[in-house]
C-alpha cells in the first residue's frame, strides 16, 4: 500500500512540476490550476489550525498569495505538496501569533450541524460536547504538537512527509504525535494513567 502511495505521490509531483514550469514560463493560468487542485486540502489544514469559519478563507488566500510570490523561486528539490504544506503551516502559525484574538463567536463544530438520524437527541448532544472538547483540546496544544497532529489527521501524511514539511526528524514527529495524542486524550477524558 505504501509503495502504491509513493508511486501516486511521485506521479502527482511530476504533474505539479509540469504546471510550475508552465507558470515559470509566463503562463499565469497554470497557477490557478494548482489553486484548484490544492485549495481543499489547504483550506482543511488552515481551518483545523485557525478554527474560525470566516477567517479561514482569508488565511487560505494569504497562503496562495505567498505561494504565488515565491513559486518562481521553487527549486524542485522537494515535492511541491511538502513545500505548499510548509508554506500553509507557516502562514497559519504567523496568523495565530499575530492575530491571536478573542475566540470566535461562531460555533466551531460545523459538521455536527447535520444530525445523524440513527442517533437519539441525547447522543447528538453528547457527540457535540465531545467534538467541542476535542477542538478545545487541540487548540490548547503547543504550535509544534498541533502542526504534527493536523498534518497527520487531516491529510494522513506519513511521518517522513511530515518531517520534511516541518523540517524535523522522523523520530521527533513520532514523539510529538505520541505526546499530542496523549494530551488530547487526557484533556477529553479523565484518563490519567498514561
Amino acid at each position: 500500500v505504501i509503495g502504491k502511495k509513493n508511486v501516486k505521490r511521485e506521479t502527482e509531483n511530476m504533474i505539479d512540476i509540469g504546471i510550475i514550469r508552465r507558470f515559470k514560463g509566463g503562463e499565469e493560468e497554470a497557477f490557478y490550476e494548482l489553486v484548484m487542485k490544492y485549495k481543499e486540502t489547504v483550506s482543511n489544514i488552515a481551518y483545523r489550525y485557525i478554527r474560525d469559519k470566516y477567517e479561514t478563507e482569508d488565511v487560505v488566500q494569504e497562503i496562495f498569495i505567498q505561494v504565488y510570490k515565491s513559486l518562481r523561486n521553487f527549486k524542485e528539490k522537494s515535492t511541491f505538496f511538502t513545500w505548499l504544506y510548509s508554506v500553509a503551516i507557516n502562514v497559519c502559525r504567523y496568523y495565530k501569533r499575530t492575530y491571536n484574538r478573542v475566540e470566535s463567536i461562531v460555533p466551531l463544530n460545523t459538521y455536527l450541524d447535520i444530525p445523524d438520524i440513527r442517533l437519539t437527541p441525547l447522543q447528538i448532544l453528547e457527540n457535540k460536547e465531545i467534538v467541542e472538547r476535542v477542538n478545545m483540546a487541540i487548540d490548547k496544544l503547543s504550535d509544534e504538537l498541533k502542526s504534527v497532529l493536523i498534518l497527520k489527521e487531516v491529510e494522513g501524511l506519513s511521518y517522513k512527509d511530515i518531517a520534511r514539511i516541518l523540517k524535523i526528524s522522523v523520530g521527533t514527529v513520532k514523539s510529538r504525535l505520541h505526546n499530542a495524542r496523549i494530551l488530547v486524550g487526557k484533556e477529553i477524558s479523565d484518563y490519567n494513567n498514561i
Partner: protein
Amino acid sequence: MFCKYIQKNLSAYLDGELSRVSEHLIKKHILSCENCRRKLEFFIWVIRLTEKKENYQLSKDFVSNLEQKIIKSKVDTKKQSIFKLSLKKVICCFGVVFIMVGIYFLLFKPSHKLEYPIATLSYQTKSIYYSKNEIIWANVVNQTRRW
C-alpha cells in the same frame, strides 16, 4: 521495561510506521498484556476523535477573490519596486556628482591670483623670540590678499 517500549510506540504502530519486527513484537505483547491493550484502545479512541470528519467549504467566489488580491499585490509590489528604483537612481546621481566635484577640486585647484580684484589687503606678520632682552630669532612675513 518492555511495556514502556510498547507504550511509547503504540501511536506509531497504529499509523503503520513501525518495522515488521516491532509490529510483530507489539502484536504478540498486546495479546498477553491487559494494561498495554487498554492503552492501545485509548490511542484508537483518540485517533477516531481527532481524525478529519469534515471538509471545509470555501466560498464559490474564492478563486476570483484570490485573483483580484493577486493583481492588487502585483500593483503594490510594482509601486514598491519603482520607488526602490528611483531611490537607487537618486543615490547614484548624488554619488556621481560628489565624486566629480571631488575630482575637480583635487585636479584643478582654483588659482589664488584673480585678474581683477575688488579689494586688496596687504599686511605683515612678525614673530620674534626674545631671551634676556636679546633677539634670538625673528620671522617677518609680508602677505597680500585679493578679493
